[in-house]
């Protein structure tokens, strides 16, 4: 403000925004480069990955079929470990989905411009992760064909209603609302891009197919004026929604009386953990995708660096959560709480999982204090996978480790997953990957409209800065 930034050799302002779009781009060049991967035929790499994903999806079908045929006795959980893989995987997948909403909604409200290149990608991830998550509680009921509607309040001949004082009922509403709103938000953002796909397509068939999904969008100024509000309000609504969803998921545990579950820190610590694992999953997919789809000019190293900073911050919050759980266990003087946190977790039969969790979630993200690590794609990619492993272990600790030491030592039982549990888990990774690869093939992975708008804004800002450089009055 005070110093005139007009001379050419001013030292670089540390607060100056860094490049979010690399190279000299026009609307046309952005359009071409961001749609290129949709028009290009699927390469050998895509088919290989798709083949792997489909095989894993096959495993999911086998797992589901066997579960329905045998009943959930085919799973490894049994009293006292009444919840195991089903709930671990549910919470893990939901958490992964949350980064999508965080990036698209919260960062939009905070006017973080770097979100623009990765939001579409992350939103798609949200949708697919929530689909994977939803499978588990449905199957866990043992009668998914009933659960699909028995959970909903509808007037039935049985005359009974859902019990609204149960967090499990809240969960049904939270997760289904989350899925619906995420889908609407994603599609609304996609409509202008689908129109640009329609208008850039070379073949008639593609033009018709994308034309149907574009709903006749014609970029009308009258539409844009309402559209901007519709999009902004969906973002505004998604923000408290995403916080509420994981809070309610944590209530499933926190409202009970099990030592290791019954704590008030669960809601914020679950939300932080969700964002932590979600950003890790975005990084895991984004690093190869930007390479192979040619998106390096819009998903720059600066984007990855910012994601690392978010992972570092949320990783520290999660670590604080772990410390606080231990502190409260000690401070409460409750022998069951103390036994759970100081004996079972550190020295019990599930010790390996606990220590893996501490290493992956508390130690690994510390590497992001160093700029060298934040800007090295190999390091980020490897760390992001470790974080996902760590977050899965965290849910295992919460669910299984807390349950397998009951109040009475005579009830203690160990837990081991069966092949069905493992197939279902790997199967959902296959389902997620299949959906994601299809998304990368048929829909632009980057929100083209928003990137163009960002380019336009930055051009305007640069123009104003160069014109009114000495005046210093700009907002």
């Amino acid at each position: 403000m005070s110093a005139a930034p007009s001379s050419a050799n001013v030292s670089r302002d540390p607060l100056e925004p860094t490049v979010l779009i690399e190279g000299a781009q026009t609307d046309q060049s952005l359009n071409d480069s961001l749609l290129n991967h949709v028009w290009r035929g699927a390469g050998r790499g895509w088919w290989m990955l798709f083949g792997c994903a489909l095989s894993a999806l096959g495993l999911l079908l086998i797992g589901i079929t066997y579960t329905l045929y045998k009943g959930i006795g085919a799973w490894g959980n049994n009293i006292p470990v009444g919840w195991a893989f089903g709930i671990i995987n549910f919470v893990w997948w939901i958490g992964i989905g949350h980064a999508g909403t965080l990036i698209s909604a919260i960062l939009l409200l905070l006017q973080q411009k770097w979100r623009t290149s990765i939001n579409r990608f992350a939103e798609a991830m949200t949708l697919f992760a929530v689909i994977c998550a939803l499978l588990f509680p449905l199957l866990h009921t043992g009668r998914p064909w009933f659960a699909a509607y028995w959970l909903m309040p509808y007037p039935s001949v049985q005359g009974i209603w859902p019990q609204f004082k149960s967090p499990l009922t809240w969960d049904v509403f939270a997760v289904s609302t989350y899925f619906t709103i995420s889908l609407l938000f994603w599609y609304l953002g996609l409509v202008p891009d689908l129109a640009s796909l329609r208008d850039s397509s070379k073949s008639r068939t593609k033009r018709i197919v994308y034309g149907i999904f574009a709903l006749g969008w014609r970029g009308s100024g009258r539409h844009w004026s309402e559209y901007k509000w519709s999009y902004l309000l969906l973002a505004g609504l998604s923000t408290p929604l995403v916080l509420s969803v994981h809070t309610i998921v944590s209530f499933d545990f926190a409202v009970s009386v099990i030592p290791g579950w019954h704590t008030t820190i669960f809601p914020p610590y679950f939300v932080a953990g969700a964002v932590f694992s979600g950003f890790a999953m975005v990084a895991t997919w984004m690093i190869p995708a930007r390479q192979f789809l040619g998106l390096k000019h819009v998903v720059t190293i600066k984007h990855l660096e910012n994601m690392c900073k978010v992972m570092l911050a949320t990783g520290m919050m999660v670590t604080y959560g772990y410390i606080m759980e231990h502190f409260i266990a000690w401070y409460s003087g409750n022998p069951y709480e103390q036994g759970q946190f100081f004996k079972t977790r550190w020295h019990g039969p599930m010790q390996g999982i606990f220590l893996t969790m501490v290493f992956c979630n508390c130690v690994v993200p510390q590497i992001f204090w160093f700029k060298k690590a934040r800007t090295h794609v190999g390091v980020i990619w490897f760390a992001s996978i470790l974080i996902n492993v760590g977050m899965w272990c965290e849910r295992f600790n919460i669910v299984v480790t807390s349950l397998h030491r009951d109040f009475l030592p005579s009830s203690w039982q160990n837990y081991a997953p069966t092949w069905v549990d493992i197939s279902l888990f790997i199967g959902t990774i296959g389902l997620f990957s299949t959906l994601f690869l299809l998304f990368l093939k048929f829909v632009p992975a980057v929100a083209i409209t928003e990137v163009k708008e960002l380019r336009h804004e930055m051009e305007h800002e640069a123009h104003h800065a160069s014109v009114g450089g000495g005046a210093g009055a700009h907002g």
Partner: protein
Amino acid sequence: MSQGAHIPHEDTGFVPERYVLAKFATSDALLEATRKIREAGQGELDTHTPYPVHGLEKALGLGRPLIPTIVLGGAIAGAFIAYSMIYFMNVLDWPINIGNRPPHSPPANIPITFELAVLLAGSSSFFGFFTLARLPKPYHPVFQSESFRQASVDGFFLSIKIREGESPDAAAALAEAEGATHVEIIEELER
């Protein structure tokens, strides 16, 4: 439909709408031209741009957007429906004793009330927008122009809907005078 398409006023009584479609080089040129042509009072204006351009609402003379009001309505309706549903089901119609808590215990009702408020507000934002925009509408006369394909890529277009019985020439000339790089007159083929 097929025989009457080009012959207005006869046979079918189909009166084709006519549009002047003008392309501008930059968004600033489009803004300026939109403002001036609107002041000149030529038919109904609309712009077609690949992304929302700041200031277009003002140039087009649009009023306050309706979406925020619709969304507020959705949120209130959602919260009201949720709370009254829970109250009816667990208090009036079939009270169940859960751990000796009162049938009406407000804190337990908050999560679902919130979720349904968000669900209805979000849905009304989405469906409200498409209703206001009268979309989906796969066919619109501006799509007849081959150059309109640029509108979703990098083109800034202004369309002027010519009033019935008036000639489009005046509007076309005005658009040209305002610096349009390409002007064409579109006559609707079918509806």
